[in-house]
């Protein structure tokens, strides 16, 4: 492990990679700050830029963007009560009241310190957990992987759908259907191409991400006629106040951070769960932990109430890398985008990544520490200036997002068809969003589609076409039982609420 850490450090500390972490954190902060645009959009917009880099550098840039976007989301939550990302909704509960009391600078500082601490502690957990889990997951066979993917897709549908489980599951199926377009990986038989040569290689992952996130989020902002920056124009830099945190507040944070970090990391590891659930659970847990007097301050600018979700959402970000790096199965929409980018680089994440590409495995983990430090030392003093980005009018913002989306596709194929296909998918996604059909399950399913078909093929060939592979191995059976419990719980909660 020490050798791995050194490999990771030497890669992550190269001039280019440090620069990429800085650029990533900065760009992520800016994009994440804009309400409506989350980490997935931020990462999607970065994909074209990573084409020119080696895989480690590309992934380090995307990891920096991820953290930056989550941090940026907190800023708009605190200043505007308009969370940039769902994972920072809970931040607004106490961050915004604090800002209204003239302590916006302090709230931003508490959020920054908590994010830093949560991210750093969970990166240590990741350092310990990832190699061990990689070794365990080497014993996994095709049926186990197939079951794990079913679990991941079910879990993300259950957790990301705001109670609309069936809608999310329909999006999963749509994502899997889109993944089957093009040549079959084994037989090279073309499927669902309708004799269109442009579809022979299938639909590009970047196209799907750009269409369902970057472009469709931009169109949704226009469609709803909402200007994410309208409220921001009222922000005056002088109103932010001091960013100094006093001793009493530091003690409160010191109590909250460890428990929220552990909770956030564990939630992040779970497939489908993530920063949003982690932050809400941490907020609720913290409210139960504190004394009665502190409890009354919740919702009115409590330090505990601000620190807990901020710590947990960053810890969950690190946690979500565990299934990606060790099993090759992303647990969230954001890590699914990263998996797609890695596959684009010709790298298959999974238990063998630890042995075959140690520099990637370790440099990503080490870059997380560096990213956290950079977020703290770069962003905290610059917050008053970065906050100005919230005043960029949508008249400029939306065309620029569309421009980045089209450029990403153009760079990939130099083909008109892909641009038209992206516009078409983005339009459909925009309408689906209006009626609360979630997009992360679609992305995760699209990314996992090929691997899922492959593991199902192997499993069925081994069992000679019998479905017995689903219950022959204890691991497969346990994973499928957990999946059944999640589905059962969703059905139960639907009927319980109805009655």
């Amino acid at each position, binding site marked *: 492990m020490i050798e791995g850490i050194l490999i990771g450090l030497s890669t992550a500390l190269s001039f280019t990679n440090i620069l990429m972490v800085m650029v990533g954190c900065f760009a992520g902060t800016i994009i994440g700050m804009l309400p409506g645009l989350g980490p997935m959009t931020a990462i999607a917009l970065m994909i*074209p830029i990573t*084409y*020119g880099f080696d895989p480690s550098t590309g992934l380090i840039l995307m990891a920096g963007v991820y953290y930056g976007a989550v941090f940026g989301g907190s800023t708009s939550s605190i200043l505007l009560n308009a969370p940039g990302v769902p994972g920072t909704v809970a931040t607004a509960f106490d961050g915004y009241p604090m800002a209204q009391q003239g302590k916006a600078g302090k709230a931003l500082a508490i959020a920054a310190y908590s994010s830093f601490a949560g991210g750093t502690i969970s990166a240590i957990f990741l350092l310990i957990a990832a190699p061990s889990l990689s070794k365990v997951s080497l014993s996994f066979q095709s049926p186990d992987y197939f079951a794990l993917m079913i679990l991941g897709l079910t879990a993300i549908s259950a957790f990301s759908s705001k*109670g*609309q489980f*069936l*809608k999310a*599951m*329909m999006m999963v*199926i*749509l994502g*899997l*259907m889109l993944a*089957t377009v093009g040549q*079959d990986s*084994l*037989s090279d*038989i073309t*499927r*669902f191409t309708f004799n269109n040569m442009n579809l022979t290689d299938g639909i590009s992952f970047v196209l799907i991400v750009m269409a369902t996130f970057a472009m469709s989020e931009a*169109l949704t902002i*226009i*469609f709803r*006629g909402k200007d994410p920056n309208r409220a921001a124009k009222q922000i005056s830099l002088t109103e932010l106040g001091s960013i100094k945190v006093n001793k009493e507040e530091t003690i409160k944070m010191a109590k909250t951070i460890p428990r929220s970090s552990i909770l956030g990391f564990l939630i992040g590891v779970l497939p489908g769960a993530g920063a949003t659930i982690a932050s809400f659970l941490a907020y609720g847990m913290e409210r139960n932990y504190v004394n009665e007097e502190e409890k009354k301050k919740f919702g009115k600018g409590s330090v505990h109430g601000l620190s807990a979700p901020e710590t947990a959402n960053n810890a969950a970000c690190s946690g979500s890398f565990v299934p990606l790096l060790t099993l090759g199965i992303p647990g969230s929409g954001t890590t699914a985008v990263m998996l797609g980018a890695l596959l684009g680089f010709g790298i298959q994440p999974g238990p063998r990544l630890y042995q075959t590409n140690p520099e990637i495995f370790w440099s990503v983990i080490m870059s997380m520490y560096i990213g956290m430090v950079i977020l703290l030392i770069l962003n905290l003093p610059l917050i008053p200036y970065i906050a100005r980005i919230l005043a960029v*009018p*949508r*008249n*400029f913002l*939306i*065309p*620029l997002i*569309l*421009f980045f989306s*089209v*450029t990403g596709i*153009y*760079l990939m194929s*130099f083909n*008109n068809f892909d*641009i*038209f296909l992206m*516009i078409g998918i983005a*339009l459909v996604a*925009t*309408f*689906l969003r*209006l*009626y*609360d*059909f979630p997009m992360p399950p679609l992305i995760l399913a699209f990314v996992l589609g090929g691997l*899922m*078909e492959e593991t*199902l*093929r192997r499993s*069925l060939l081994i*069992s*000679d*076409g019998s479905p017995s592979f689903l219950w022959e191995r204890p691991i497969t059976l346990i994973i499928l039982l957990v999946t059944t419990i999640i589905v059962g719980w969703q059905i139960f909660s*639907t009927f319980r609420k*109805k009655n």
Partner: protein
Amino acid sequence: MRISPTKFISLLFLVLSVLYLYSAYNIQVFAFDENAPFNARTFPIYLGYAGIFLSSLKIILPEKTTVIVDHKVLDYKSIIYLIIVSVIYGAVILKIGYFLSTSLFLISSYYLLGERRWIWMFTLSFPFVAIFMYLLHGVLNIYLRDPLLQYLGIIG
């Protein structure tokens, strides 16, 4: 009877799943693969049935919460304009080149969204695209096809 938009979308998804399943059964596989435990048809067939099952459930089951979208507040005009401009952009990008088409796309999009500050509109189009192209092509060495600039000898 009035059908809710969510159920209507589910109905469309049901139709899509049926068509997908029909196409899945019509995938041509090799003769020796026809009766294999798994061939190019197997996975799509499962997906088709899953799609039919889930969308049927969504149509049949009563809705827990109804999503209400007020179409009066939706800005259809801007969306349609932006889509038209984007389609034109996609259509001409190969012919007139990345630099010119992108700059014109940006200027027209700013204008359509109500921007009238021409200095900003210009700055965030031609010079902005030029800098972006330089970063991609010159610094990051990412190939950017632009027949016009190649013809003019500006890029190699």
